[in-house]
């Protein structure tokens, strides 16, 4: 009963294209669940099925006690959905948007008024309530969309790439708001392709070409999929350094980043060898230890797939 989302063997095809293949997972109450993947990996298709917007081809999903295939209207009453597209009415004010969506959820009169006041306060939008939605900056619009999805106090909050196109500072604020909400007992399911956003999730599932490849906490994912140690090498002579590093045995991956290389070395106590080789190739190179990130996990999983 503590599982608010139970997905089992969920599939969805569009013609001969399988967008979602045999996906199963559970999400517990009060959890932030992150759904990661490249564009077209099946994230949005999954979220639309879970919101009762799209009929599954096969398999089942139960959200907040309602079956998405048999009782999509029951699902809709219990969830809040924030779609990928900015889907507020730009020609209405913040208050009018909230008033409309509250009405759409069956709220009216004093209950609706006080609920609007609450979410406006909760999301720091009180002084914006009379502004036209089209006049708001990106971060504030995103908060209005979140306010819309929270009006009826849903059990589960579905956020489909909620911060796409928003600056990093606003993104952090937004995630903080979601986390505060989740701390009060709401369950959140969010899709993203920002790895830093995914770091804040309790558990992360990784979609590759319609399949849910891995699913775990961010730290467990890093431990299991990015073993060994990570270094970043800053160098002006990337070609020479890469050639020198490639000669070392046990080197797992070399990846080009901004002004240098990100190197994964296995087994762990090999920092000296990496540093020596790199410095031999370019005396001016700087070698620093680095933390594993979900980016590394993503890369490792995708590489594994490719092989």
């Amino acid at each position: 009963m503590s599982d608010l989302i139970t997905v089992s063997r969920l599939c969805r095809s569009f013609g001969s294209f399988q967008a979602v293949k045999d996906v199963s997972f559970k999400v517990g109450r009060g959890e932030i669940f992150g759904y990661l993947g490249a564009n077209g990996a099946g994230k949005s298709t999954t979220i639309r099925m879970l919101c009762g917007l799209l009929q599954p081809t096969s398999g089942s999903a139960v959200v907040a006690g309602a079956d998405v295939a048999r009782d999509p209207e029951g699902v809709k009453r219990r969830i809040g959905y924030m779609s990928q597209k900015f889907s507020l009415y730009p020609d209405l004010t913040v208050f009018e948007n909230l008033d409309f969506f509250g009405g759409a959820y069956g709220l009216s009169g004093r209950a609706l008024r006080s609920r609007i006041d609450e979410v406006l306060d909760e999301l720091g939008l009180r002084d914006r309530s009379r502004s036209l939605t089209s006049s708001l900056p990106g971060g504030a619009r995103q908060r209005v969309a979140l306010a819309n999805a929270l009006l009826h106090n849903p059990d589960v909050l579905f956020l489909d790439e909620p911060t796409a196109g928003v600056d990093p500072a606003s993104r952090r604020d937004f995630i903080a708001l979601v986390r505060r909400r989740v701390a009060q007992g709401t369950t959140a399911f969010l899709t993203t392709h920002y790895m830093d956003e995914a770091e804040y999730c309790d558990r992360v599932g990784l979609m590759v070409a319609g399949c849910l490849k891995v699913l775990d906490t961010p730290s467990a994912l890093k431990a299991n999929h990015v073993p060994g140690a990570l270094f970043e090498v800053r160098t002006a002579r990337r070609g020479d350094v890469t050639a020198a590093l490639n000669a070392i045995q046990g080197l797992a991956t070399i990846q080009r980043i901004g002004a240098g290389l990100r190197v994964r070395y296995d087994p762990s106590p090999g920092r000296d060898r990496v540093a020596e080789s790199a410095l031999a190739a370019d005396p001016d190179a700087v070698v620093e230890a680095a933390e594993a990130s979900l980016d590394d996990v993503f890369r490792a999983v995708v590489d594994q797939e490719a092989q």
Partner: protein
Amino acid sequence: MTSSTSRPLTPRKVPRFRRFAVRTGAMARKETWHVVRDPSNLFLALGMPVVLIIVFGYGVSFDLDHVPVAIIDQDGTRTSRQVARDLTASGEFDAIADAGEPEDADRLFRRQEAAAAVILPRGMEKSLARGEQVTLQVLVDGSDGGRASSVIGSSAAIVRSASIRAAASGLPRAMVVPIRGRVRTLFNPELRSAVFLVPGLIAYVLAIAAVLLTALTVAREWERGNMEQLFATPVGRLEIVLGKLSPYLAIGLLQALLVLAVGTVVFDVPVRGHMALLAAGTLLFLAGTLSQGLFISVLARNQQVATQAGAISSLLPAVLLSGFLFPIENMPLALQVIASVFPSRYYVELLRGVMLKDAPLAVLWPQLAAMAAFAAVMIVLSTARFGRRIA
């Protein structure tokens, strides 16, 4: 643990009807805000019909007035001059100064100096005196079909009455036509075009405005992705459809009132029948045409296609198949069948019936029923085609 605020706010105890009303009301209120926020649309919706009706009311007229006619009098007698005077007496025809010879008619038509020519033949008076039949030749510029047929009708009538008088005053008593027809036109005694055009115009302007209003607003929701957000809420299809329609129904009624006011004040069109019957008919007509626009936008899902389909599907029936300009009885069977589907013809019939003839409900109920049926079918179709799921 779950905080006290996170229990669902919609109590399950709330009656279904109340929830239906709340959600439909929210849709209607939102739609009203859209209208208020962009008043240019509202002015367009209310201004366009008034402009149209004034332009049409003055521009479209079948009244024959001062048609230039070349009267070519080859006889030059008292009798022929009398016939010439008869032709121009009513003001329908103006004799042009330089009539010339019969061969000149072509040239006069081409230069648009005359629309008709009447040739009074040499020896006309003498022939009449002898009791012989005289043939007057009337040449008509047929390039404007509507005017040509009116000219033919009027000139024939004038010539006939002239010949009767000629016979009466002429010598052989036997030529007097014993029976005279006397035509009296009811309901529109002066046969003013405006009187029967304005009811048709009301139907025309309302149809276009109504179809376009809804076609555009629903297509816009699809285009902007608002529809997906709407579908993620518990709002039902019928609630969306009815909520969308109601504010535009109000605007449509306002349009109808405005156009009616312009018709009666500017064009002196009478309203002889019951306003209630007029209002009921207008309401049903608007419900049908607004739903037609809704149906189009449900199918089209983009504003450009919806605008075009909306304009064509409202304009053609309202202009061509409503009986506004062309009598439906004269159309080929296939067109008559199509005309019977669209509500425009019933609305025109109802408007003319109520405004000009004070026709009672007992006579006009089939028109009301036909419009109600069209509206019901359109609402059912749009609701059915309104996929609640996005793919």
